């Protein structure tokens, strides 16, 4: 039971370091940034790099022991049509725990497809659906699993720019959420409900659309954010158990790229005891190469 939970925690920690398809997401006045642990609802041409470090509970019988996980991940998303994108991603992980040899290698290759179903510019609302998958056996034996996973997911985002003027200071807020049921090709592996929520406060939105309070750059380009990246086991002996991290941080946006920095705070004991870190560099190809690889194929 404990091993299943710690595996789930480690898997979620690694998964949280492996974004599957971020997008330049615009709904009316609102630009939803490419959040780091919880995928945003947009579809776009993008390239994402992330480095993460976190300590996770060790998968052994020694209570309290943990593994230090460093992870370098990249993900590329390509629009096929303006509303449909494919993504491919990989992740290199290095795991060290006291008394054990270092384990390192590539995780399984991630493939994704996402379709933006609905955008409401007035109410700054966006809804997408997609499937994320990890191809079993495509990674190293030390890190990647032999089985594949498939996660049909719903992505939503809502900005609060439609609030009345009396609530002006709340208008830069936005929330995004994802909900995905993960299935494994190996029936002995528990399924999981992967869910995430972000709360963000856009200072660029405040400056341009609500009230310019004279913030200097680079602060005026920052978006403070809190992300909850969670996974709830839905089958097997771990059913009902939830692991995940709460990630407060900040995203800095320029015209064509984004840099992000977040802490990773374990949401509960099963998720770990130590605070980790996520660092992101994200390129919007639709802004960098608008006439070539940054535009939809069709």
């Amino acid at each position: 039971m404990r091993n299943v939970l710690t595996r789930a925690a480690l898997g979620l920690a690694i998964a949280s370091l492996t974004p599957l398809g971020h997008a330049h997401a615009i709904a009316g006045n609102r630009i939803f940034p490419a959040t780091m642990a919880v995928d945003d609802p947009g579809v776009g041409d993008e390239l994402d790099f992330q480095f993460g470090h976190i300590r996770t509970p060790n998968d052994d019988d020694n209570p309290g022991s943990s593994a230090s996980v460093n992870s370098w991940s990249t993900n590329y998303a390509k629009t096929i049509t303006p509303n449909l994108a494919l993504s491919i991603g990989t992740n290199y992980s290095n795991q060290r725990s006291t008394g054990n040899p270092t384990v390192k290698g590539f995780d399984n290759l991630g493939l994704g497809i996402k379709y933006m179903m609905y955008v409401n510019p007035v109410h700054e609302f966006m809804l997408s659906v997609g499937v994320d998958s990890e191809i079993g056996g495509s990674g190293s034996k030390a890190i990647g699993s032999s089985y594949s996973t498939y996660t049909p997911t719903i992505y939503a985002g809502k900005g609060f720019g439609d609030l009345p003027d009396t609530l002006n200071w709340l208008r830069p807020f936005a929330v995004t959420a994802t909900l995905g049921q993960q299935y494994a090709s190996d029936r002995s592996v528990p399924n999981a409900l992967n869910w995430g929520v972000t709360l963000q406060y856009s200072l660029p939105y405040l400056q341009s659309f609500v009230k310019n309070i004279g913030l200097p750059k680079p602060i005026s380009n920052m978006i403070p954010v809190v992300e909850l990246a969670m996974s709830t086991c839905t089958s097997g002996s771990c059913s009902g158990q939830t692991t995940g991290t709460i990630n407060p941080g900040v995203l800095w946006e320029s015209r064509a790229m984004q840099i992000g920095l977040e802490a990773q705070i374990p949401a509960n004991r099963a998720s770990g005891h130590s605070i980790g870190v996520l660092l992101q560099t994200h390129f919007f190809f639709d802004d960098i190469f608008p006439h070539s690889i940054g535009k939809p194929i069709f």
Partner: protein
Amino acid sequence: MRNASFYLSTRAVFLRSFLRLLTVVGALCVGGIGQAWAHAQPDTQSPLAGEIVSAPSEVKITYNEALEPAFSSLIVSDAKGKQVNSAKAEVDATTHKTMRVPLPALGAGKYQVKWVAVADDGHRTQGSFNFTVK
């Protein structure tokens, strides 16, 4: 029969190649940042969002990239939603980054600016903000 050292060295070569590829791609991206942009966003606005001002003679917004004048627009409305600018917004002919619209003499009250910016590659952005005439 390949031994373990063969696989380790192959993996190390693969990892180095992968990291080099990421570096090259990242450099290409940074190098490409000098090219045309896609989504126009305001750099400066006059009046500012939420500002209380004496009656302005115009509304002027400078964007971070060139606009397509034929499809970009800027409309100013009063508190009742009635458009107050009779002239059409104009985009600066030199840089194509500044859009302005002249205003008649405005009375005291709240006004809303609504803009649509279509970049020269066709990407469309929009925005709105209020200012108050004292």
